[in-house]
């Protein structure tokens, strides 16, 4: 449990922000043209791991994701960005997987093999914001969420956790630990050509998921109810311009 660290980065594949979504009975359904990408916060988590690798603190970055076959594209992308090995927990095509179950699957895979487990602070689609906390608690590791900075000094990892736009908290985490990374001004890297070529030949490990979780709930989805009755301004663009001006005038801001 020292340098070089063994690092696991948990990534989720999500529909990109422009994806069209439909309700199929009471479950979300994305149309076939949907483009899937790595969850934006997980890219920041992977970038933090890669920066530790750049500093020579690890040469052992594994990525893991749970989901159907399509998620291999996201895992491949993580290899292209610079991860060393990728593992796929083969679960069904269920966009509404319960975070507790996903955390159990990852915990079962990670066991006590890793010094640092990184996750994004949440997924941009489901926004549950708890998988990192659950993995840490299942493993009994120290953890921090909403992390915007990781400093290392030998065996001490100091994290900066963002509380709001003005305030952050800083403390040292004992290894092994789980860190859930918030997006920040570091820009996740693009894959280098050499990594892209290397990743092509790489094998992605297939992992059997654990049996279904004992934690179950009833859940269904609907189109959100409107909290306000939005009055859509109608007409041609120039008519909308005039109408919006009138509204702003009525609200005494112009």
């Amino acid at each position: 449990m020292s340098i070089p660290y063994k690092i696991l980065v948990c990534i989720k594949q999500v529909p990109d922000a422009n994806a069209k979504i439909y309700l199929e009975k009471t479950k979300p359904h994305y149309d076939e043209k949907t483009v899937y990408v790595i969850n934006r916060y997980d890219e920041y988590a992977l970038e933090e791991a890669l920066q530790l690798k750049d500093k020579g603190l690890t040469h052992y970055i594994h990525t893991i994701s749970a989901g159907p076959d399509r998620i291999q594209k996201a895992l491949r992308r993580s290899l292209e960005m610079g991860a060393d090995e990728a593992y796929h927990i083969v679960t069904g095509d269920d966009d509404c997987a319960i975070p507790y179950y996903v955390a159990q699957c990852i915990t079962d895979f990670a066991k006590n093999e890793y010094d640092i487990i990184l996750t994004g602070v949440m997924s941009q689609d489901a926004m549950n914001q708890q998988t990192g906390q659950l993995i840490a608690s299942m493993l009994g590791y120290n953890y921090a969420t909403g992390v915007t900075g990781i400093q290392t000094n030998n065996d001490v990892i100091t994290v900066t956790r963002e509380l709001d736009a003005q305030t952050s908290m800083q403390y040292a985490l004992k290894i092994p630990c789980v860190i859930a990374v918030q997006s920040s001004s570091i820009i996740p890297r693009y894959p280098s050509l050499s990594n892209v070529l290397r990743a092509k030949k790489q094998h992605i490990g297939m992992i059997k998921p654990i049996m279904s979780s004992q934690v179950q709930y009833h859940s269904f989805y609907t189109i959100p109810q409107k909290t306000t009755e939005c009055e859509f301004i109608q007409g041609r663009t120039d008519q909308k311009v005039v109408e919006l001006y009138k509204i702003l005038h009525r609200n005494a801001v112009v």
Partner: protein
Amino acid sequence: MCILIIADIKNNQINPATAELFTAANTIAKDIITPVYLLIPCNDVKITSNYRPDVKTIVIGMSIYNYNAQGLSKAIASIAHDIDAHYIIGLHTPFTIDFLPSISIEYNAHCITQVHTIQHDEHLTFVRGSCSGKLDQYIDIDNKPVIASIAPGSFDEYIADDTDNSINDTINDTINEVTQITIAAAEKQLCTFITKENKDSSLDEADIIIGVGKGIGSKDNLTLIYNFAKIFPHSAVAGSRIVCDYGWLPYSKQVGITGKSIAPRVYIACAISGSSQHIAGIKGAKTIIAINKDNDAPIFNISHYGVVEDIFTFIPQFLEYVKRL
């Protein structure tokens, strides 16, 4: 059975929005008289807000400077067990969400996060935004306790009322009773707080705020938004988190759960889709106007006026129109 409310902490004091959780607790209790406990996670925070001192209060014997999520969540789980809490609710803020889900591990329970509505008719159902805010997820759990984080601004602040005896009467005998629970020294961390000085109060003072999302495309394109803002006296420009991450706007201009909450007379959301993270920060705005080319954008669900247009065609025409006036 009882309801355990976790006080949120902001700037070393109890976050006044904690009062919203008492309203949420009333919705959970409905017609059944249910004791409510308030748990304060640290023993050295200022108690300044009107958070209902009439409820039984439990204080964790941990300094905020020794914060440790693991120790705290275990302590809360053990308290919840002792008082037979069927519901454990906290605010969905970076502070509380750090430890709240971990409580569920002790129970093999489930934590429902970012709840914006609680429905209590035949069943008790928690509603949260999912699929980037495009759908709502309704969750109904049989097992107890149910652990939930409530999005700030989803419930009105609770104001004690003489006619309301749903909660007060049963706990009169325990008024102001404070129990201290200590955390093992081994679980204490040494924390420092960093406060960025922010002299920028433009978002607090503006009458009208123009918000901009990733759809603006580049820092250069922000000129369009600045020109739009110039039309209005007392205006300011704000952005979603991603706009600040890209460095197009400073973080002092970020609006949402991890940024600022704003309350201008008018908020105009330009090319902002309206994730729940952002929406939580704009609920104080009196009038919300959204300009977005996607008529399905969730921002329209909370807007008073909607303009389905591309900002790059609409705003220049608007500027042209104002110039001619």
